[in-house]
């Protein structure tokens, strides 16, 4: 029972980190039609920006803001400089997937060329540990959970109640029609890249905080979990990504308590495959 509660706690934290990343990923995918596999590499690049700020003596939370800004700027640059020219030429979606894979390698190896193979940690305190039954979480992990909830609420508010959010939804649903209705879709696409990049930067920093130590390749497997959460929830579904993140996060950590932990990520994909077999559009996709 204690191990179950402990795993439940770990799962909630993993889900919190995953949710921030997955929502950013799916939001960008929905509006821009680019399956951006470089997302994980940008996450880690942003985490290193936060590390640089942290090493300069600032709080890691300030570093996270810098990472968000860097993630936003980097993602906009990635779209403007790389993806948009391919889209203008009418490249097939699979071509853009390969391009994004290439960008993953370029960014990841670029980061490794700068920081080397060494792994680093933020200078920060984890704060006191709270114990309840078998559940054990540090103050920082509570902050991460709180931050994730705040981000989810923010994304909900943005999409549901703001003009920008409605324009994003319209662009995602039908770009031509949205343009004909007077929505400046090109600008919406750029703003979406910036927003998803900011979430990417935040996700990279909280991943690095949560892991305790990170290097240039630390997001490799995490990207696969992001994809699992996104496709489990239904690609392009912000709330689906949130639900997918919770399911994947809890399933991986709780299963690890009862099977060899090395196989915990396999469990995530078994769930995903079953889900895709039953509901091909994902958890929330069929509602549209």
């Amino acid at each position, binding site marked *: 029972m204690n191990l179950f509660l402990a795993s439940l706690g770990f799962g909630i934290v993993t889900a919190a980190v995953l949710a921030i990343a997955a929502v950013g990923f799916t939001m960008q995918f929905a509006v821009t039609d680019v*399956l951006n596999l470089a997302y994980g590499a940008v996450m880690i690049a942003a985490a290193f920006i936060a590390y640089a700020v942290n090493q300069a003596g600032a709080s890691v939370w300030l570093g996270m803001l810098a990472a968000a800004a860097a993630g936003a700027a980097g993602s906009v640059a990635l779209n403007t400089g790389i993806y948009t020219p391919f889209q203008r030429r009418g490249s097939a979606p699979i071509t853009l997937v390969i391009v994004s894979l290439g960008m993953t390698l370029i960014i990841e190896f670029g980061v490794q060329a700068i920081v080397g193979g*060494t792994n680093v940690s933020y200078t920060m305190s984890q704060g006191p540990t709270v114990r309840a039954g078998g559940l054990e979480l540090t103050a920082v992990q509570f902050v991460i959970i709180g931050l994730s909830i705040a981000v989810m609420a923010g994304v909900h508010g943005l999409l549901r109640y703001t003009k920008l959010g409605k324009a994003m939804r319209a662009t995602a649903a039908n770009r031509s029609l949205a343009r004909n209705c007077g929505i400046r879709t090109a600008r919406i696409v750029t703003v979406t890249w910036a927003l998803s990049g900011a979430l990417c930067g935040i996700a990279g920093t909280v991943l690095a905080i949560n892991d305790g*130590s990170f*290097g240039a390749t630390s997001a490799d497997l995490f990207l696969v979990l992001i*994809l699992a959460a996104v*496709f489990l929830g239904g690609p392009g579904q*912000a709330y689906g990504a949130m639900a997918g993140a919770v399911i994947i996060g809890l399933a991986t950590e709780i299963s690890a*308590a009862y099977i060899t932990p090395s196989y915990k990520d396999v469990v995530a994909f078994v769930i995903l495959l079953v889900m895709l077999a039953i509901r*091909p*559009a994902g958890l929330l996709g069929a509602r549209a």
Partner: protein
Amino acid sequence: MLTTLRRTNSGRRPVLAAFIAAGVATAGSAGLAACASSSSSPAGTSPASGGTLTVADLAPFSGPDAALGPTYLVSCDGATQTINQAGGVLGHKLTCKGVDTRGDPADAVPAARQMFATTSGLALVIGVTSDEAASVVPVINADKMVVFAMTGQSEFDSVHFQYFYRLVPPDLEESYAMIAIAQQLGYKKIALAFGNDIGSQTFIQPAISAIGKAGMTLAANETLDLSASTFRTEAQKIVAAHPDVILTEALGPTDATFLSEVKQLNGGKMIPVIGTSATISPDWYKSVAAAVGAPVLASGFHADNLVTETSGPSYTPFYNAIMSQRGKTGSTGNFATYLTAPGAVHLYDGINLAALAMTEAKSTSPAVYAPYIEKIGDGTPGAEVVYSFAQGVAALKQGKAIRYEGPGGPTSFDSYHDSTGIFQIDTYSPSGAVQVSGNITPAQLRALS
């Protein structure tokens, strides 16, 4: 009703196809990365007269074990610079080249083949960890190239490869050494936490066997997936088993993350740790000390390591060679840690042995100079002991037989070209300096084997 960003009315195929494409593309990234990482140079392997000879550092430069390749490169750059300052080998200058295996046997073979196809004047290969040794050593041997390998895999104890040389102990002996350290420190309940890479997994079975022979208890045995980002469940299982000590080797960020989680889940108290010799590395120290705290690591960590010189005639040129690379290559951590890092010490010796063998054989062809490695390492009766390449060349010019003894101590090659030294126990100071805290006798190891 939940907010929807995208219509998903297009049926199952696009969703599945996109996911499969993404999965395939993501899985393929590792392979592409390996192809993308090795450098190239003009084709051909025979050096022109007076041309440059290349020492290839075939090891992980990316992936979880990415710290290993640069460690070996520090040794290579230091050793070759010293050799070049002494006039080079038969008029040839030496240079080093890193070849990335990503620590993956599947990526390592094409990387090795590309190395042979594109490296001009290739005269020696170093590196070759347990991650890739099983797949690349046969390739290197087939190409008749001398390799000084860092692998500890026990299969090389009993399979003869003509061009394979090893100055590090087999992993099973290291496993016994770790248990011997635990015995010395009075620990009874042992937990194992090793990475899921080939190089780390080879420690587990010998360790379990030695735990039984030592009358200890195996409290937990957790495998750490090096590609995972957290290990809380594994840490929780180990903490719940209440071990006296954790034996570990999980490189990359894994040990740092795992041990910080153990500390957190153990109420902020670290469980003592015994590491393999691979944990004696500035990169490992830097990442783990940052994660758990340097004083914590200094007070509760031991590692086995081969006995290396810390003074004397072989140490000074070694010290100068390694420290000359500070700021040029390698880790940004405590650079002096390289002076005891197995990869730095034993590959420095390997490069010097090979260079002296070329000099005595008057040939840079591995087929010709390889037999001289054993002759110079083990020595012949009456041979003059030399402690550096420069001393060796001077003695050879005088027509003397030589025996090279470097900072890794005297060598004694067996019929499989393995030369195993004796073990010491290392600890870290809070500043990351390596300290010797004791020795392990051959009798202790025999009792556990």
